[in-house]
């Protein structure tokens, strides 16, 4: 059994309890022990970073320091949390001056950033620690090759020197379930979630561009590993019906929901009924 600190953030538990529950069950299936980090703060990302760099560094350094107490790596299901923690980790590792300054603040709480507990995205831990072969061994209800488009989310992939995440990780994870990955031109493009507070129309237009590109390439389902991206691509489809009169009918599932079903979990286990665009058609693609 491998043990991890789980940093759940605030968006997944509030907006995607189905993603959270599916992740916990998938982790259990692979003997990954996830311990919820206690007394940790919201990462504030990326808004806090924009107007209060020092506050953002301190809040996230504190989370990293709390994980350093037991030293287990941190996993998170959210790209925003991942980006904040990983970026701050990167800065603190490479900038002695800032690290000293931050550690002085953390000392008041008896904490210290040491950098032993590494922040990681949950799917990266699945890929590198469990591995595709082990995952394949446990698949009991493989998907029938149905086309799934991957939306990685910007902050999972970039900046690559900080995130250290390779697109093939998620691609192979999706293929391990028996699904096929649909390539589409705008695969790297932003879903628009980050610009929602400053320009909602633009945010919607970006989500539309993505959905269009996926649909035209023949995707039947979409998978995400971030609650903000999930919200943009799933919930905005309802809005697009009104604003553009367009119906995409592309169910958007968090990756652990798809993997969970292929592992033999049932639709309640992965909270399929909570997806905005009805996702139950995926059940028709599972073999018995």
């Amino acid at each position, binding site marked *: 059994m491998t043990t991890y600190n789980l940093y759940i953030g605030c968006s997944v538990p509030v907006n995607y309890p189905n993603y959270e529950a599916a992740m916990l069950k998938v982790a259990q299936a692979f003997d990954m022990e996830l311990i919820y980090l*206690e*007394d940790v*703060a919201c990462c504030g990302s990326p808004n806090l970073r*924009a107007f209060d760099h020092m506050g953002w560094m*301190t809040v996230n350094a504190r989370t990293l320091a709390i994980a350093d107490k037991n030293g287990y790596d941190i996993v998170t299901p959210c790209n925003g949390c991942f980006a904040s923690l990983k970026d701050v980790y990167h800065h603190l590792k490479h900038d002695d001056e800032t690290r000293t300054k931050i550690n002085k603040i953390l000392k008041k709480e008896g904490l210290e950033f040491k950098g032993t507990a590494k922040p990681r995205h949950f799917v990266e831990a699945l890929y590198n620690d469990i591995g595709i072969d082990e995952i394949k061994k446990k698949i009991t209800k493989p998907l029938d090759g149905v086309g799934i488009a991957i939306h990685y989310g910007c902050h999972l992939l*970039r900046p690559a020197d900080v995130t250290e995440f390779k697109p093939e990780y998620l691609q192979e994870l999706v293929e391990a379930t028996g699904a096929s990955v649909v390539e589409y031109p705008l695969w790297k493009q932003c879903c628009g979630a980050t610009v929602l507070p400053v320009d909602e129309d633009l945010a919607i237009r970006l989500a539309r561009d993505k959905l269009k590109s996926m649909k035209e390439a023949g995707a039947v389902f979409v998978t995400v590993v971030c609650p903000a991206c999930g919200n943009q691509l799933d919930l905005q489809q309802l809005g697009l019906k009104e604003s553009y009169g367009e119906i995409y009918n592309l169910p958007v599932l968090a990756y652990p929901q798809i993997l969970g079903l292929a592992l033999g979990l049932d639709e309640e286990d992965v909270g399929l009924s909570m997806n905005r665009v009805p996702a139950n058609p995926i059940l028709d693609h599972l073999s018995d």
Partner: protein
Amino acid sequence: MTETDEPTGPPVTLIDAIDMSKLDPKFREEIKSMPNGEELSACFACSTCTAACPTANMWKYKPHQLIRMILLGMREEVLSSNEIWLCLTCYECQERCPQKVRVTDIFFDCKNLAAEEGKIPVNVLALAKELLTKGQLYTVTADWEREDMGLEPEVPGLSVDAVKTILKDTRTKKLVGGEE
């Protein structure tokens, strides 16, 4: 690249002359001294960043222009621009820069400088207030959904006090001021 509205006139080919007396020669050093500015002056204005940006076609100042404006010392124009706040932070520009200029990260630094001068969009300021007063960006409104999934009703392990305490000593408090 996202679609734009129909163009209303011929493309602008001439720009206003830059008023040299208004330039702040220290601006480039200011940015360079920030966490992501080291490679700033390596920019050779190839505009690959602009080509990579999914929304620059809607911007008055394109990413490569903003970098050039920083190098020239157009502090006021850069820090007052909407563009730095419209940046998606998708890192497409930074990732492709052949000179390794941390374009997106530099825009984060610019936003911090702008915020220090009180230049911050209303909705972003509202988020600052939310973080300072509630200690989190999202709060549970449908706890039955969590219970349906067999999860505890509150966000597990979240300390709202930690954020509030830290941000009281940083810029967030200054931005929100007495409004909390």
